[in-house]
């Protein structure tokens, strides 16, 4: 069964990954092999078995709602590829019709 090329391109797009034309087939083949392998789970009867997201029963580890110091603005911007005026600077997000 595996993954079709359109499916691979779809999940790549969802994951914000661009695949070059000459990579698509290779990834499609590899992902299909893996998906075929994991499909063996359908052999198992899991009727009435609850999903287990976390193997340890730890719940709602909350602390009191008291403000504590965090990273300063400078520390938070320290690794930024582009920053200005105390903000992360990024390409225009909202398309207001004007050219880039």
């Amino acid at each position, binding site marked *: 069964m595996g993954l079709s090329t359109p499916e691979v391109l779809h999940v790549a797009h969802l994951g914000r990954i661009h695949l070059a034309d000459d990579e698509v087939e290779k990834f499609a083949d590899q992902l299909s092999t893996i998906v075929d392998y994991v499909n063996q789970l359908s052999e198992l009867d899991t009727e009435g078995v609850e999903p287990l997201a*976390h193997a340890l029963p730890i719940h709602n580890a909350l602390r009191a709602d008291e403000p504590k110091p965090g990273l300063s603005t400078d520390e*938070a911007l320290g690794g930024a590829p582009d920053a200005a005026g105390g903000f992360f600077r*990024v390409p225009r997000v909202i398309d207001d019709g004007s050219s880039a």
Partner: protein
Amino acid sequence: MAILNQTACQMRDALRRRDLTVADAAEACLQAIERLDPTVAAFVATDAAAVRRRAAEIDARLDAGDDVGLLAGVPVAVKDNMCTADALPTSCGSRILDGWRAPYNAHVVERLLAEGAVIIGKTNMDEFAMGSSTEHSYFGPTHNPWDPETVPGGSSGGSAAAVAARMVPLALGSDTGGSIRQPGSLCGVVGMKPTYGLVSRYGLVAFASSLDQIGPLARTVGDAALLLQAVAGHDARDSTSADQPVPDYLAALDEPLEPLRIGVPKQFFTEGLDPEVARLVRDAIGVYERLGAKVVEVDLPHATDYAIATYYIVAPSEASSNLARYDGVHYGYRASEHADMIDMYMRSRSEGFGDEVKRRIMLGTFALSSGYYDAYYKKALRVRRLVRRDFDEAFEKVDCLMGPTSPTPAFRIGERVENPLAMYLSDLFTVGANMSAIAGISVPCGFTAAGLPVGLQILTGVFSEDRLLRIARMVERETDWAACRPPLCEASA
């Protein structure tokens, strides 16, 4: 290099007695790295000046008679997915974080510093801890010190190789599907994955949040216990951190566990298992029988192939979520050319991530996507409960489970890197423990005819590390694999 032939415990004692200075211990590591790392490539970052400053500081405190801590003056290496705020970058084996300086220390790094350790450097790893060979590192592969044409295992291959080659006595790794135990096995060192929740993940760059755990790599069980003692314990900053007291792992370490019931899962001795591995592991189990342990075969129908299938849905799913943050906005690599915001995300990620990371993000995205979520992700979580049940039921009958850590000894560099599924099956015996949260250790149990190490894996139930270490110590005491040195250490000594 007599200094580096000591165990960490011996070094720690010599440092305390002032028979050895921290400066000399640190210098020995730096020289070993200079001599051996061009071949092994275990380290991605070291800062000799910072190491010497830290060594001088600890020497001064020891000279003044201070109790500096559990690891006073002992050199330690740290896998490059744990945040180190000062001299060293945290790059996770990836171009997307190449050179990134963490603004804070991981909890385990804080603990190392509080206990007086000297952090020698950051070690190489598969990118974002995704891999079983350390070949998926942006910085190139690490080489197995026992045969540099073979892999050290992964993803903590750098840490395992650094310890095996005696560049450092102790190293931290992380284990999500076997990434401490398997490289431990392939490099002939002790590698342990504690129970999920024992060691804080604060500052561990996340791969799969319900599976990741930090643990020790060392040449001896006692050294692994020492390092675990230093980093284990509750941390309120990690909401998955277990809030329970940590026992003294060293206190009773030399007391064998008696009576001892050992379960050998029949699924751990399959047809695909390398015959030399099978023989060496059975011999090691035979040692326990001679010591009076009872060995029985047990049945864990979901613990191997189904656990791998489950793991390669759950882990990529969690990874696809955890790695969404690498978008070129806040930190790390940003592509220089992009048409707009979405294009910036796509180019930064496509140029910044390697193939294995891309595969796993796509797999995870697929498994979580609309129309496939129930059949894949939810199904996998149901099977995860079946895997957990297999282990729970086994531990009602036996004290521990034993088998090979890895189906094969170290394979050649390049042999599996183009065959993802073959690579994934390296984890056949290790993923079950991560899925179930239980504790596991790999201890050396011999060498193949070609001189490659083989590891015995021992698994115990949750929060039983004290017993696990005592059981591991039993076979170590009867054999002497830890005394063996890789040929390349001899050649340049």
